[in-house]
């Protein structure tokens, strides 16, 4: 029964691939046309839309070749993982494990592969000020992001230049946009950590593998909207099935650039229009797509890196070098992850130790009947 369904799926995928190739070709044409028409580019850029639309900082369609890398350099990377609070395990605390990696190339230097756990259990760390509810995964992720940046800035003080620092994933804390006072506070902490990296002259980049972003494609799609005045998606004049922008629907930026860039090349730099970035100021997140040995990755950098040619070239050349050394994914990030990751067995060990400490002071095991039953079914 499943085999037939899988067959059908394979056929469907084949059909989609054909359609995809046609869309890609069309997208490249639209990109080329838009690159030579500043007027159309402006109009597309001024659209009223809820989509994220890339704002090009460089000529729209031109690939940038791989810059020469320095003779000696250092790559830093940080990654974090966590154990979330879990009421079924009576776990009213959370753990952040921050992995830090420092790899010197072309010179002798200290190799660092390290991780450090931090446990948060105080009332003010665990409950949200506004309504007393348990801290949300978004806020935990934000604290983690701040701690990753702090670890990098601190380590950078002991590392010779040139150096670049990598984090896994986006620099855009989009979930904190129009948030509570607490979210605002964490956003400010994050920006302060970015400022600390800038202070020590450490170009920073977020590396996004398997990016599904469509900022550039969205710009192309808006330019297809054939009307004279600026586009307003809220009041789209076309019937839903006839919208010209559908021609490029389903494409992603990474796919588009993969069909254009050769290994080592990058796309132009764009400014992200994510709403939360209005508060980023000098750290406004910009991005480019980089053709690595395997995939096209999205690389995000703060504006102070994007607008500094030397820093941008350094990020471009060294991130590519890292992806080559790591056979497709930056070595430093892979190792930082290895350092940070809390595996299931380690999580269980942590919980058992907690249970042991509870038992020692006469408290019962920390689990709800639901969890206990899930762990061991009755037979």
């Amino acid at each position, binding site marked *: 029964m499943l085999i037939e369904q899988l067959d059908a799926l394979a056929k469907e995928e084949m059909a989609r691939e054909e359609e995809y190739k046609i869309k890609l070709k069309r997208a490249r044409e639209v990109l080329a046309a838009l690159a030579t028409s500043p007027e159309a580019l402006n109009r597309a850029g001024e659209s009223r839309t809820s989509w994220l639309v890339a704002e090009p900082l460089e000529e729209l369609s031109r690939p940038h070749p791989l810059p020469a890398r320095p003779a000696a350099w250092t790559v830093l990377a940080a990654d974090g993982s966590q154990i979330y609070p879990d009421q079924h395990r009576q776990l009213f605390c959370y753990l952040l494990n921050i992995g830090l990696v420092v*790899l010197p*190339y*072309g010179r002798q*230097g200290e*190799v660092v*592969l390290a991780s450090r756990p931090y446990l948060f259990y105080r009332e003010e760390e665990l409950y949200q000020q506004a309504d007393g509810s348990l801290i949300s995964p978004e806020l935990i992720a934000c604290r983690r992001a701040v701690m990753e940046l702090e670890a990098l800035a601190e380590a950078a003080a002991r590392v010779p230049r040139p150096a670049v620092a990598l984090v896994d994933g986006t620099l855009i804390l989009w979930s904190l946009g129009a948030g509570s006072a607490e979210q605002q506070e964490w956003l400010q902490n994050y920006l302060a950590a970015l400022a600390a990296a800038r202070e020590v002259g450490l170009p920073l980049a977020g590396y996004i593998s398997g990016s599904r972003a469509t900022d550039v494609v969205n710009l192309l799609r808006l330019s297809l909207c054939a009307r004279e005045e600026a586009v307003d998606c809220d009041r789209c004049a076309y019937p839903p099935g006839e919208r010209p922008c559908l021609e490029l629907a389903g494409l992603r930026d990474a796919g588009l650039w993969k069909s254009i860039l050769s290994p080592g090349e990058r796309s132009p730099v764009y400014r992200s229009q994510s709403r939360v970035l209005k508060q980023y100021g000098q750290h406004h997140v910009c991005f480019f797509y980089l053709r690595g040995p395997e995939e096209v990755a999205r690389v995000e950098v703060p504006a102070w890196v994007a607008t500094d040619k030397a820093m941008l070239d350094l990020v471009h050349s060294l991130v590519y070098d890292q992806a080559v*050394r790591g056979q497709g994914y930056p*070595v430093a990030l892979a*190792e930082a992850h*290895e350092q940070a990751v809390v595996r299931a067995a380690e999580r269980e060990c942590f919980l058992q130790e907690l249970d042991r400490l509870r038992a020692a002071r006469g408290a019962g095991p920390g689990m709800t009947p639901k969890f206990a039953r899930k762990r061991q079914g009755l037979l």
Partner: protein
Amino acid sequence: MSALGEVVASSTREFTAEARELYGSPAFGSFVRVTAGEQVIYGVVYNIVTEGVDAGRRPVAFGTPWPQVAQEHPQLTKLLRTYFSCLTLGFRQGERIYTYLPPFPPYIHSFIEECRREEIKELTARPHYLAHILKSGLVVADQLAAAAIRQACAVQPDAGEYIRRAGRELRRLLTGDLERLKAILRQLE
């Protein structure tokens, strides 16, 4: 004398150490010492292993030879470790060296050092250690015996005479197994 490694596994008849540096193990057949409380325990290195720190992660081929590969991938020096295992030969209590197993094995995390010349001299003065090695059941026992004799020769005043004595001891121990004896003696030429 600086430590060559740190004990990470310990039992009555043998102990294993993590080398302080990657590929920094003492040579196969060399004599080492560990201080354990009142006693100093002596052993001979019989196995050297270099492997990934993480048991779940096997080293992969990079297509670049060592040490160049370590310059291109500096994390390797932290992700690989060298371990060496030592067969316990004897111990010192007070002034005397005893060439049989100590009452207790070394402590985990003790430091291992190279044996001092005088200690090797005393430990191997009489070739009793050869019986112990040959009866150890180790797959490499014969090769280990030869390697240990070569190390011992280096500190004995008359190396030729020492080899002849060790040869006689081997002949006694391997009576009826001429092929084995010849194989060991060939390693002493």
